[in-house]
């Protein structure tokens, strides 16, 4: 298979994720769509790594996974804290995040 096909799938997944981030209001689903965007980028990285024949792109993809895991833990912690304070779980209502 040509690398082109993988890049097309990657771009499609990335754009679906971007549309979801803009459309959705539930912060949980926004985090899920961020995961989609990161995974689209990961697929590109692995495809380019295969294209060049060395493993640097795979290391980059693993680091992206680590960063995604950190983002998920902190984001879900924020959502749990919002739920504890009886705030609405809604990105439009949460325009002010102080204290």
């Amino acid at each position, binding site marked *: *298979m*040509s*690398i*082109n*096909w*993988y*890049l*097309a*799938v990657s*771009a499609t*997944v990335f*754009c*679906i*994720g971007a*549309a979801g981030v*803009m*459309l*959705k209001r539930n912060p*949980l*689903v926004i985090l*899920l*769509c961020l*995961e*989609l965007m990161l*995974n689209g980028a*990961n*697929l590109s990285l*692995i*495809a380019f790594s*295969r*294209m*060049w*024949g060395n*493993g*640097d792109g*795979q*290391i980059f*993809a*693993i*680091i992206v*996974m*680590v*960063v*995604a*895991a*950190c*983002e*998920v*833990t*902190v984001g*879900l*912690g*924020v*959502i*749990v*804290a919002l*739920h*504890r304070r009886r705030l609405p*779980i*809604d990105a439009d209502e949460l325009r002010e995040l102080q204290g």
Partner: protein
Amino acid sequence: MVEILFFIAAIGAIAGAVGVVVLENPFYSVLSLVAHLLSLALLFLLLEAQFVAAVQVVVYAGAVMVLYVFVVSYVGGQNLPIRAVNSPSLRIAAPLFAFCLFVELMIATLGTGLSAISSEGPKLAANYGEPEQIGELLLTKFLLPFEVASFLLLIAAVGAVMLARRRRGLDEPEVPAPLGLLRPAGTGTMAESAGGGFFRKSTASASDDSTSTGRDLG
């Protein structure tokens, strides 16, 4: 064979991604993302990145998605429909912007006529994509990113615990235990001897009475 597997995995990945955005219930969105991640792992295997595919299944589809499922069931997934977006212009602008981004990415990756891109890639080394190669790269060439990533994970774990822990003053006001109200005063429990509730009032009045009567007698 490779082509068939690629199209199965690619359709699965794109269908999973669409499901994340389209499905109303966040729980179903998480399950759809799991399907997407598994299809993506198959694509990684086709690109001969075995270790990354294994990490994708174990860490992403296993651990991170379990965390999501826990939080969705804890928060109680409020299914806010897409139609509840405040401004109707955003509903039109967001897919339009995403489509423009898609066209731009396609032009950038496919339309530039990079001859190298349209190839199948070079002949690979024998240990390409195996844990041996990944480990060697992580501990030699990419040692600094590896260490920074470990620190980042530590900071994120501590931050998540700080954010999600139960704080005093934020929870609901303390409700008195029903047993303490039902019990009559002066039954000699530990709570009363520690000086709480009804018992303190009744003993205070009783001692007042006793001192007054004693003074009368004296």
